[in-house]
């Protein structure tokens, strides 16, 4: 049983979001980088739980990005996983990222590929589905539970207004989100072990991006809160009804 976890690096959730070069690039100055929370808390931790139940499970991590991703992938290795790969390519779009991961996965023949539901910076929710298409595998997105019995995965996923439970045969791709596992803090042993785990740098296959981020903008600022006294809820209802026209 071989599992591949797709790891992306994202700005820490408290980072100041600002842009530079005429709003054409994200301003990375002062930004702390973290593992995309969906990839870490849900995909990786669930894979580690599967390995704790069945020690023969092998976990590989992959990221597509430049050398600045190495500290983040080491952090992921401190939580778990036998080895990591970094495809050495920057500024790849979702299609390009999926193409790179698919190229590695075709050689390595994983039984299970887990990714996050989306990255918290570009919010595309695309890489997992694209990867499944490129590898001709089933894909289940927005998974909140993942159980494995032999070659059959039982996956619960979010749908509009509820949840659905599916049975799917391996190999497959699943995108993970809140509910699947509990966040873990790496311990000292994990951090020490991560230093010597292999992190292989893989050269990318040549493909063009299909999309290009050309400009960024901030949402219009709120004009300021209108406070209503606590003893006058009728006034709040009136404002929502007559002024905001939302009820």
């Amino acid at each position, binding site marked *: 049983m071989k599992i591949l976890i797709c790891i992306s690096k994202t700005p820490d959730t408290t980072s100041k979001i600002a842009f530079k070069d005429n709003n054409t690039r994200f301003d990375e100055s002062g930004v702390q980088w973290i593992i995309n929370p969906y990839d870490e808390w849900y995909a990786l931790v669930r894979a580690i739980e599967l390995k704790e139940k069945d020690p023969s499970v092998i976990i590989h991590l992959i990221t597509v990005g430049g050398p600045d991703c190495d500290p983040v992938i080491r952090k992921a290795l401190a939580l778990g996983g036998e080895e990591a790969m970094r495809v050495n390519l920057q500024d790849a779009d979702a299609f390009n990222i999926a193409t790179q991961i698919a190229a590695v996965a075709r050689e390595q023949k994983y039984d299970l590929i887990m990714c996050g539901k989306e990255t918290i910076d570009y919010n595309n929710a695309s890489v997992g589905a694209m990867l499944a298409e490129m590898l001709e595998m089933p894909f289940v997105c927005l998974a909140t539970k993942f159980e494995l019995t032999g070659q059959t995965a039982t996956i619960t996923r979010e749908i509009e207004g509820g949840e659905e439970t599916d049975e799917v045969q391996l190999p497959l791709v699943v995108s993970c989100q809140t509910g699947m596992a509990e966040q873990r803090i790496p311990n000292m042993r994990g951090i020490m072990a991560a230093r010597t785990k292999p992190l292989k740098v893989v050269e990318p296959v040549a493909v063009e991006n299909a999309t290009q981020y050309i400009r960024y903008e901030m949402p219009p600022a709120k004009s300021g809160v209108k*406070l209503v*006294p606590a003893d006058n809820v009728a006034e709040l209802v009136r404002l929502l009804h007559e002024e905001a026209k939302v009820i």
Partner: protein
Amino acid sequence: MVLIFIDHADGQVKKASFEALTYGVELAKLLGTDAAGILLGTIETDAAALGQYGIGKLYQLSNPALNAMDSSVISALCAKAAADLGATVFIFPHNSSGKSVAPRVAVRLKAGIVSGATALPDLSDGFVVKKAVFSGKAFAQVKVLTDIKVISVNPNSFHINKNDSGSAEIVPLNMDVPPATIKVVSVQKVSGEVPLTEAEIVVSGGRGLKGPENWGIVEDLAKALHAATACSRPVADSGWRPHHEHVGQTGIQIAPDLYIALGISGAIQHLAGVNRSKTIVVINKDPEAPFFKAADYGIVGDVFDVVPRLTEEIKKLA
């Protein structure tokens, strides 16, 4: 041609599909071409009535096996239909179904995709689509570099256009259905509630509610407003509320017309998931709570005192 994916469940067309229809029809006008719908599976309502949203034709493969969202099957059929019909743009709702199929269809059609579009494309310099990034903290303009384009439309970003007299011609599709890859074992619907991602009004509770036993006041207010309920992350993590209610940067991102936050401090990660809401109301006993800075209306007060009175006042409106 602009092709629009009609997503449905339980025999009903989902609200996000009507928004995708509006988007696709408007885009077709911009491009000077036709808009058509594609419906895989069966619905219980009158499919021709989808013409009310502006499409002339609805391509349908009415095989009930397709009512299950099997991403391999649905995307193969979508891509085949798009190629056969010569679609140049394919529109999906950016919901659980769109996320299952749109990126796969993009790969099959060698199309660039913009997921979570919040505005119609700007065609003045290529094909540029606006989308939310950094979980709603900013927007990006994304240029699609391929001939064929796939766009998934963010829920609650478009006002639905409807004209009661429209009717679509239903054109049956004749395609072989590939073998299923997913077996649906069970579906658990949260009964009587409005789906969170589609809701126009959301009432959300935080740690200020003190415990799960106090959620009655949240639910009563939600019921009075026909709203969905949501919560902050610590509330879901403590098991007070189910995980599928957790909104924020690491939960579900929503953009309702009205978001009412009860006993939520307004941490940056929470705001990231809800700040695209059109109107935000905050009720918090701490006047210094950061949420007030992101709110349109606020009451400094105790939720246990204010919320029941607010619910009664709203009931008077009906």
